[in-house]
């Protein structure tokens, strides 16, 4: 488990002006965010607000231009080296030539650990894919593939779980079902989690806290706790409270 902190984080990129010169522009920040141990935080915001940049900074895939990113007081690349990060992307993130089981073994191989058969079995069960252990990704549905990707992200019991639009490529019905699946999977170990999503409902349904980012440069416009008890039933989505919160967040997504 981990607590993490972004302090005065900005990320600038270079762009070419009409005159052909390069100029720097801020895509993100300054951003100050603290996330507590075991907290599930959803990050929402308009396209291009830098949500995915935040995730990449935490994954150690990108460096902030200014400011500091720390997970348990350490920079993300340290956690990377300790194999303490789990990540799942929207789609196409399984090795297509490996079976379900073999994909789940990947994090162990990278960490140089033996993959205990029972742990792999547990992960297969967690993903609800008993009987599909030896199937290749191409033989699975989109929802099944995403469950494998999430189970793989959890394989080494990471200190921080990063989810980048994990269900963005799924149809609405599958997506809804996967949301409940994710909560079930998440409750098994409750890792500190940051999920980037476009869907306000998904954020409210899954997160303990929702952060709304402004348009470029992305800053925190709103930081709201989601009070509902877990596990959250499907009926929750039909309550007035749920809709009030979702509407409030949606309103914050409109350009100021």
């Amino acid at each position, binding site marked *: 488990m981990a607590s993490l902190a972004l302090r005065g984080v900005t990320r600038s990129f270079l762009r070419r002006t009409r005159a052909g010169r390069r100029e720097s522009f801020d895509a993100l920040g300054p951003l100050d965010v603290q996330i507590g141990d075991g907290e599930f935080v959803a990050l929402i915001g308009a396209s291009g607000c830098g949500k995915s940049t935040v995730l*990449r900074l935490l*994954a*150690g*895939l990108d460096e902030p231009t200014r400011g500091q990113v720390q997970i348990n007081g350490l920079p993300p690349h340290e956690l*990377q*080296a*300790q*194999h*303490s*990060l*789990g*990540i799942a*992307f929207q789609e*196409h*993130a*399984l*090795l*297509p*030539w490996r079976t379900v089981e073999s994909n789940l073994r*990947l*994090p162990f*191989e*990278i*960490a140089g650990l033996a993959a205990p058969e029972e742990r792999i079995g547990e992960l297969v069960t967690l993903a609800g894919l008993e009987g599909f252990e030896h199937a*290749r*990704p*191409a033989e699975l549905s989109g929802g099944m*593939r995403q469950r494998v990707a999430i189970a793989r992200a959890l394989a080494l019991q990471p200190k921080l779980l*990063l989810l980048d639009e994990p269900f963005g490529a799924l149809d609405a019905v599958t997506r809804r079902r996967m949301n409940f699946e994710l909560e079930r999977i998440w409750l098994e170990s409750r890792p500190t989690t940051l999920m980037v999503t476009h869907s306000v409902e998904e954020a409210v349904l899954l997160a303990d806290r929702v952060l709304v980012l402004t348009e470029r440069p992305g800053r925190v416009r709103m930081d709201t706790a989601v009070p509902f008890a877990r596990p959250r039933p499907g009926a929750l989505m039909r309550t007035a409270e749920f809709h009030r919160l979702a509407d409030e967040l949606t309103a914050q997504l409109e350009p100021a």
Partner: protein
Amino acid sequence: MKLRGRLLYPAIGCVLMLGGWEVIGRAGLLGRTFPSLTEVLRVYADGPRAALLVRSSTATLGSAATGYAVGLCLGAAVALLAHLVPLLRGGLDRLAVLVNALPVIALGPVLIITAGRESTPAALAAVPVFFLLYTSTGVGLRGASRRLELVLTTLGAGRWQRLTKLEAIAAVPSVLSGMKIAASSAMIGAIVGEWFGAPSGLGVVVLNSMQNFQIPLLWATVIVIAAMTLSGYGLLTLIEQAVRRRIGECDG
């Protein structure tokens, strides 16, 4: 219906073509240099000439295979180096293009002087193979999914693990495509290399039979060359298809 499309129509096509060849050759419609099919086939039944073709095929196949192996290893190794050391890539790319731009006809005499008559066929076979494998290996290694690279990096994979667990495997179909095309190039290179004065080989037979007006032998040799090239290409195509199915591109 399916069987008819796949077997019957091609068979009819072949019979028409070969029959046409026989008729044109017998009637002498295209002159004395166009022999009939039976005349060409008789070469294979003629002991001394058949033995010459076997001997020469072995020599050419040996040169082509040697050049193929050398070009393949060098091309793939240099591509790997360029992939792992980005600093070198620009220079190596230009070097590969330069090697490819040299005309074989111009390179031949140089190789005769430097590598010797015996080695020139293999050397000329290696040159195009090197270029094709350098290109296809590089494209394959760079073609690994960006997203998978990010997943592996986040999980803490180092450079070597990303190479062995992702990039090298993702590159296999492209490498095999390169190997497939390179098989024909190696045969051409070896035969052209033999024209510059190799002691034996199909290229030598082609040249001699042309100069001595042994028309059926010339045709028989060309058919052997075509058959060898096509078998190499066909074999590698089968391997490539099997591997592509095994690796399962894109989806995942």
